[in-house]
């Protein structure tokens, strides 16, 4: 019957529009892999060049004169800021590319919503980490980065692939565990921001492409 196929098509179109208008599906999985590599590179720079080959940076800091500790803290925060900036640029670059390839718009009401929901916890975490840094409270910095980033992902998960939600949960767990094991921040940074991103990126690339 003619009206029958029309109804089926209508329902298909409705489902598609509901999905596309409520979730940002141009988020690139491949960018996750590159973000992970950037995070690991940042950790290696910190390890070899800033901390002079010391994993336990808490003790390293404690044994330094105040002036030197201050300058090191700024080097570490610049290192982290560069990693963050590169990560954001990579995510934007690959996602814009993916949107273009699929003939979709990148800047839509839903990508704006995604961004706002991501940025509120992330910005809060950034300010909080900055305060910790000023107070020389070094050992909670990596746990805080991981926890607030995880919360940001959980919050943004509603507006993109559901997998982001689970990545967020894993980041939160990693952050909480790392708070229990002070001094191993670099290792947890490499695991949370490096390895988890790479695994996530590869999984998304296999499942959705690009």
């Amino acid at each position, binding site marked *: 019957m003619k009206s029958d196929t029309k109804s089926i098509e*209508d*329902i298909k179109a409705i489902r598609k*529009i509901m999905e596309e*208008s409520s979730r940002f599906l141009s988020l690139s999985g491949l960018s996750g892999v590159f973000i992970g590599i950037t995070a690991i590179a940042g950790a290696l720079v910190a390890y070899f060049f800033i901390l002079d080959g010391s994993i336990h940076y808490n003790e390293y800091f404690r044994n330094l004169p105040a002036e030197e500790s201050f300058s090191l803290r700024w080097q570490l925060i610049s290192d982290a800021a560069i990693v963050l900036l590169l990560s954001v640029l990579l995510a934007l670059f690959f996602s814009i590319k993916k949107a273009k390839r699929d003939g979709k718009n990148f800047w*839509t009401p839903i990508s704006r919503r995604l961004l706002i929901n991501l940025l509120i916890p992330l910005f809060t975490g950034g300010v909080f980490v900055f305060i910790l840094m000023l107070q020389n409270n070094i050992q909670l910095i990596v746990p805080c980065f991981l926890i607030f980033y995880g919360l940001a992902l959980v919050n943004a998960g509603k507006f993109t692939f559901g997998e982001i939600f689970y990545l967020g949960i894993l980041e939160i767990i990693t952050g909480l565990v790392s708070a229990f094991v002070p001094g191993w921040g670099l290792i947890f940074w490499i695991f949370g921001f490096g390895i988890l991103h790479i695994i996530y990126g590869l999984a998304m690339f296999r499942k959705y492409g690009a």
Partner: protein
Amino acid sequence: MKDLISNINKVFESRVRLGIMSVLMVNETYDFNGLKETLNVTDGNLASHLKALEEKGIIKVNKQFIGRKPNTSYSATEAGIAEFRQHLKALENLIKEQ
């Protein structure tokens, strides 16, 4: 059979209107340009369908200023959501019946 057809709502017969309602069912609000891009329709076409849905009380219009720019966004009314749900159910039943 008569029952099935009676729930098919004439207001939602057009594809554009189906599209508008699909977006507004899953998003609290959506602005004009967002709708236009999602549904891939022209300004005039979209505006006339929005107007029709508004007049029937299916959607409501929220006008506000973002900075100095006027911004028009739309949301579905409670009655509109209920009517659209009924329409969807009728569509599904129609398919099942065949």
